């Protein structure tokens, strides 16, 4: 974390009157069987971080893919950056998607490309000069603490390093929305904390709206109870009783959204499934 300000914007505060970055309304999808998601409605406001909780197999990853049009819903509408995308042709979706960043569950790095080419993929495709690509990639890799992996290939990286490279790839374009699909899944506690620290850093330094999918409550609570301190260049706990007001929760059960609210609401809900999940 030696380069905290590398990707920092000039003004991390979102405009107060801006509409939602993402808005889903009555979204349903199924794949040759019972519905995976049914009538899901929620939105993500500028600067907001939404933590999507739920046990494995309830459609969390599907929901993330719907948000940026990688999957199409059978019913409902999805508005991304103010544009309805649920029926939008694929060609028109590419420029919209490039404004968002996504970290896939298994990183989804291009195995045959070096870390430099993976992280700078968008810039390379846009034909940016090599010097500029190198500089931006080094900045992004410094942001995730992996500057030394510049010339390596993904198969030679550990699981945690691959996840951090994937975060660097998602952040290099200064996205207006970031989607994290189980970024700490399958990682050890120390590496998980490093990943969560990066997410907190992105949230607090850049105020980038995000949706984070996880089934690890510990990660979710850490996001709520911590802030990034630029002076110390690390994540620090908020004072007792305080939580991050822009970090809120969603919970899925069997394809339905059963909870949408703050950490306080989550801890005091009467919903039986939520209580069982928390316990």
């Amino acid at each position: 974390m030696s380069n905290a300000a590398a990707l920092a914007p000039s003004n991390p505060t979102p405009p107060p009157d801006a509409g939602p970055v993402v808005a889903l309304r009555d979204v349903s999808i199924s794949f040759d069987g019972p519905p995976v998601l049914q009538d899901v409605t929620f939105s993500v406001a500028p600067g907001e971080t939404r933590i999507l909780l739920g046990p494995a197999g309830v459609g969390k990853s599907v929901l993330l893919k719907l948000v940026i049009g990688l999957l199409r819903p059978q019913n409902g509408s999805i508005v991304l950056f103010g544009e309805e995308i649920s029926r939008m042709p694929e060609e028109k979706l590419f420029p919209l998607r490039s404004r968002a960043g996504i970290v896939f569950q298994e990183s989804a790095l291009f195995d045959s490309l070096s870390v430099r080419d993976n992280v700078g993929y968008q810039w390379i495709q846009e034909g940016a000069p090599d010097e500029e690509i190198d500089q931006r990639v080094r900045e992004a890799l410094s942001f995730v603490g992996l500057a030394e992996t510049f010339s390596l290939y993904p198969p030679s990286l550990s699981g945690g390093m691959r996840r951090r490279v994937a975060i660097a790839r998602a952040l290099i374009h200064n996205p207006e929305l970031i989607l994290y699909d189980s970024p700490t899944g399958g990682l050890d506690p120390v590496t998980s904390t490093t990943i969560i620290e990066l997410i907190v850093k992105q949230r607090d330094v850049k105020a980038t709206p995000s949706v984070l999918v996880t089934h690890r409550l510990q990660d979710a609570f850490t996001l709520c109870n911590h802030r990034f301190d630029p002076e110390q260049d690390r994540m620090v706990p908020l004072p007792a009783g305080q939580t991050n007001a822009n970090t809120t929760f969603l919970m899925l059960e069997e394809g339905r959204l059963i909870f949408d609210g703050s950490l306080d609401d989550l801890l005091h809900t009467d919903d039986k499934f939520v209580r069982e999940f928390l316990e």
Partner: protein
Amino acid sequence: MAINTIDRTAKQIVLTLQEYSLFASRAFLNLFRPPIYWTDFLMQSDIIGVGSVPIVILSGFFTGGVLALQSAATLSEFGATAVTGQFVSLTMIRELGAVLTGIMVAGRNASSMASELGSMVVTEQIDAMRALGVDPMRKLVTPRIFASIAMLLLLTIVSDAFGIVGGAAVTVFLNHQNATQYFHMAYERLHYPDIIQGLVKPLFFGYILGSIGCFYGMRTTGGTEGVGRATISAVVNSSVLIIAVDFLITHVLLSIFPT
């Protein structure tokens, strides 16, 4: 119960055909709309073309040799071994050079495309590419299909040439005939319609093997087992389709250029 199974299978086949038609036509039209990834086209041309040269040379050479052996045995009964060169060159150029090269390259490259793209699908690399604002059809599929077409045309010429050389080797060293006579007959009876027939076919075969390899790769489901299934489907279907389309093209070309 059986009716239901037949009904489901028939619908599945029609659906696959529809998906393939849309996929192949979209990949084709992409060549005429920017962005065009020329670097990827050149890289694929190297992999498909240069990488396939050894197997094409060997298969062409030995096929020409076998043709010379078999034809000489039959032609000697009529005292017509002198036309061995004509037989080998016409068979290689009009038919076997294109078909054998198509099947050999399909075995090598349709399988490679299906497994490579299939692995990218199951590890979400294709989704990652789409999420990064890059169209996988343009970036991955179109360059592979057009590299297949361009390279199969050149590889077929190589195969034809080595087939004739293989026939010459057998004619001279095993059948102890005159090399000049062999090459004279091989050249003398060769006409432009024969060459056109031989060079039109690889254009279709390249399109078939490239589009089918990419099609099965891009619709892979079911993890690593699914990649295996996609690879098998790509090789089997492209090989069968090459032979079937060869029949149709030959029929059409013979009506245009009657012998």
